[in-house]
C-alpha cells in the first residue's frame, strides 16, 4: 500500500508566517506538500477551538505559527496567544491527547527557510506517528 501521507493544517498570522511562507516560495525552497495553510490576521485571533476542529476534520497534525515575541504587528497578539497555547497544551496532555501532533513555531517574514524546515520536520514526525486514530475513532463512537 502507498505510504501514509499525513494531513497537516497550519494556522498562521498574516504579517509574519504567511509572509515568511511567501518568501519560501519566492526563494523556491521546496517542502512537503502535506500542509494546508489558513491565514488569520494574528496569532491572537487563533481560537483554540479552531485547532480542535482541524483534528475533528481529520488532520493528523497541526501547526500554529506567527510573529516572534516583540514582533507582533499588533504589538501583543502573539503574547496573548502564547498564554492560551501554554494552557491548551497542558490540558490536552492531561487528557492524554497526543500533543506530539500539535506544533507551535515563531516564523518571521524573513524566515522562509525556517518555514520549510518547520513543515518538513512536522510532516516527518507525524508520518512516524501514523494516522491520528485516537481522534478519528471518536468520529463515530457513541452514535447508535
Amino acid at each position, binding site marked *: 500500500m502507498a505510504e501514509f*501521507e499525513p*494531513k497537516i*493544517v497550519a494556522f498562521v498570522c498574516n504579517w509574519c508566517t*504567511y*509572509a515568511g*511562507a*511567501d518568501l*519560501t*516560495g*519566492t526563494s*523556491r*525552497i*521546496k*517542502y512537503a*506538500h502535506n500542509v*494546508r*495553510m*489558513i*491565514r*488569520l*490576521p*494574528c496569532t*491572537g*485571533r*487563533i*481560537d*483554540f477551538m*479552531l485547532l480542535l*476542529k*482541524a483534528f475533528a*476534520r481529520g*488532520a493528523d497534525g497541526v501547526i500554529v505559527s506567527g510573529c516572534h515575541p516583540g514582533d*507582533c*504587528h*499588533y*504589538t*501583543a*497578539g502573539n503574547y*496573548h*496567544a502564547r498564554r*492560551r497555547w501554554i494552557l491548551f497544551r497542558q490540558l490536552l496532555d492531561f487528557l492524554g491527547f497526543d500533543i506530539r501532533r500539535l506544533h507551535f513555531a515563531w516564523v518571521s517574514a524573513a524566515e522562509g527557510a525556517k518555514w*520549510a524546515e518547520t513543515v518538513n520536520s512536522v510532516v516527518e514526525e507525524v508520518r512516524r506517528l501514523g494516522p491520528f486514530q485516537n481522534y478519528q475513532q471518536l468520529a463515530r463512537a457513541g452514535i447508535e
Partner: protein
Amino acid sequence: MSRIGVFLCHCGENIAGTVDPGKVVEAANRIPGVVHSVDYKYMCSDPGQNLIREAMRDKRLTGVVVAACSPRMHEPTFRRVCAESGLNPFLCEMANVREHCSWVHEKSELTTAKAIDLVRIMVEKAKRNRPLFPIKVPVTKTALVLGGGIAGIQASLDIANAGYKVLLVERDPSIGGHMAQLSETFPTLDCSQCILTPRMVEVAQHPNITLHTYSELESVDGFIGNFKVKIRKKARGIDEKLCTGCGVCAQKCPLKKIPSEFNAAMGMRTAIYTPFPQAVPNKPVIDKKRCTYYLKGKCKACEKACPAEAIRFDQPDEIIEVETGAIVCTTGFEVLSTEFFPEYGYGKPKDIITGLQFERLASASGPTLGAIRRPSDGKEPETVVFIACAGSRDPAKGIEYCSKICCMYTAKHAMLYKHKVHQGNAYVFYMDIRAGGKMYEEFVRRAIEEDGVKYIRGRVSRVYEQDGKLIVKGADTLLGAQPVEIEADLVVLATAMVANSGAEELAKKIHVSYDSYHFLAEAHPKLRPVETNTAGIFLAGACQAPRDIPETVAQASAAASKVAALFSADELSREPVIAVVHRTAPPIFSICEGCFMCEQACPFQAIEREEIKTRDGKLIKVVAKVNPGVCQGCGTCVALCRAKAIDLQGFTNEQVYAEVMAV
C-alpha cells in the same frame, strides 16, 4: 445562494508548470456554489482582468476567488477589479497557489491536489464573505504638541505652516528646552540660541499656534481624530496680560540665591523669575516652593515694585479642556546628575560637573558669560578632564545603551575649552569614539589634531579631591592598561541621557507603551518610527531614545507630516477588518455578558462599554462595544470571547470555520 467565480492564473509557467490547470478548473467547477471557473495565462494582465469583469456581469457572480500569487502581491489589484465592476471588493479572495504551492512543490498529482484544496478553502470562505465598507471617522484638525523643546517647536511650526491649528504645551515657564541651554552645537559650532530663538519667537507669533507654557497634561481620552484633552495651566502668580516683562520684580526679589534650573545650578535666580533673557513668553513666574510670601505670608516685594500691578498671589491653577485630532509627544530627556556616581564622589566635589553644566559655563549668555571658570573658586582651570560614557554602556549601572551624543559634545567641549584657554590641557577618557554622522568624524579629528585634545582610551576608576586638585585615576588600554593619573582642576562627566522621570506616568496617560529604560515606544522600530501603537499619537526627539539635534528635527518634521496627512481629509477612512460585538433583538440585545475581559486584552484600548437601556431609561445591561476608529483588527478579543459575542469582519468565525472544514 452564492454564485462564486474561480479564476486560475497560470502566471506563465510559474503555476502551470507544476500544477495542472485543467484539473483545477474542473475540480473548482464541482465545488457547490461555484458557477464559473476559468484559467488564463496572466490573470493580472488587462485581458485577464477583463475575464473577471465579463464573468461578473454575465454570470452575476456574488463572489470571486482568484487562484494565483500571494494576496500580499495582487489582492489590491483584483479587489479593485471587483470594485470597478460593481462588486464589493471584500467579496474577492485569493488562493495562493504560487508562493504556497507551485513554487514550493515539484510537479505532481499531489501538488495539483493541493492547489485544488487551496481553491476550495478560499471558495468556502468567499461564500461567507459579506460586503464591507471602509470606516469613516471624523477628524478634529487641531494637533496637541507636548513639550516645547526643539522637537516640539519644529513639529508645531511644520503643522501650523501646513495650515492646521496647534496647541503647544510646555511644562516649564518658557519653551526652548535643552537646546536653549547649549552653548554651541556640533559639528558646526554655531551658537545654539542664535539658531533656536528665532524659531521660539516664530512659535509665539504664529497665528495657528496656541502656546501654553508652565502647563501640564492632565488626561487624554478619545481616539485618533477625536482626542479629548485636559491641560493644567499652573498659576504663574502674575497676570500675563498686564505683565510687560520689564523684570523689575526679579530685581526687587530679596531671594537671590536659588540655583537656576536653566543654568543647571551653575548660576542663581530669584523666587520670581524669568528662566532666561530670551524666554518665550518673556513673563516671569513665582516659585511657590521658595517665595517668602507663600512660605511665611509676608514680603510681597515684587507686588510693591511691579509698575503694571500684574502680581497675583492668589491666582489658581486653570484646567483647559481641548479637542484635538492628533498628539505629538516631544517631551525630551534628562541627563544623569553627578550624584549618580559613587566613584566620582557622589557629586560632592564642586568641580566635577556634567556636560550640561559645562554648556552653561561655555555659553556666552551663561553665568560666567562664556568664560570657563570652575564652580569652587571661579579660577580658570588649567587642566580639564572630560569623561565620556559616564553611566552609558554600563550594564552594571543599568544603562546598557549608548547615549549617542556624548562622543560629539565631549569633543566639542574639549574644543571650546581649548579655544578659550589656549595653554590649558584637555584630556578625554573614552571607550570608543562613535562619530557616525555628517562631518562628525572630521569634527572629532579636528579636536585631536588641530586643538591638541589628548584622548585616552580607558575608563576612569576614581576621581577624588586632594589639596585643591581633582585626582583622576584611570588606565590607558592602548598602552596595555597602564595606570594613568591626572591632576585636574575641573572634571566634566558626559553623563548618560535618560528618560524623563515622569515618562512612565505620561506613557500611561496617553496609552502608549515604553521600553525597559522608560523611553516611549514607537509602533515599529523600522517602518513606523514616529508612530505609536495608539493611532493618532506620534513621537519625536529624545523622549523615544537618545538623539542629537538634526535627528530630532528630522523626526519632528516626520511626525508633523504624519499629522498633516491625517488632517488632510475631513474624515479618516480605515480598513473595515475590525471586531464587532454581537447585537440582536430584545430581550437579549446581545449575547455579550459584559465580562470585559476583552477590554483588558485589547492592545489598543478599542473596547468601550455601552449601556443598553429600556425606553424609559432603565439599565438592562452593559455590553462591550468596539470603537471602529481605534480597533486595528488583530482579533485577540474574538479568540478570547467565550460566548463568541465578538467577531472579526473579514475573518469571521463562520468563514474560518468553513475554511477548516474544507481542508
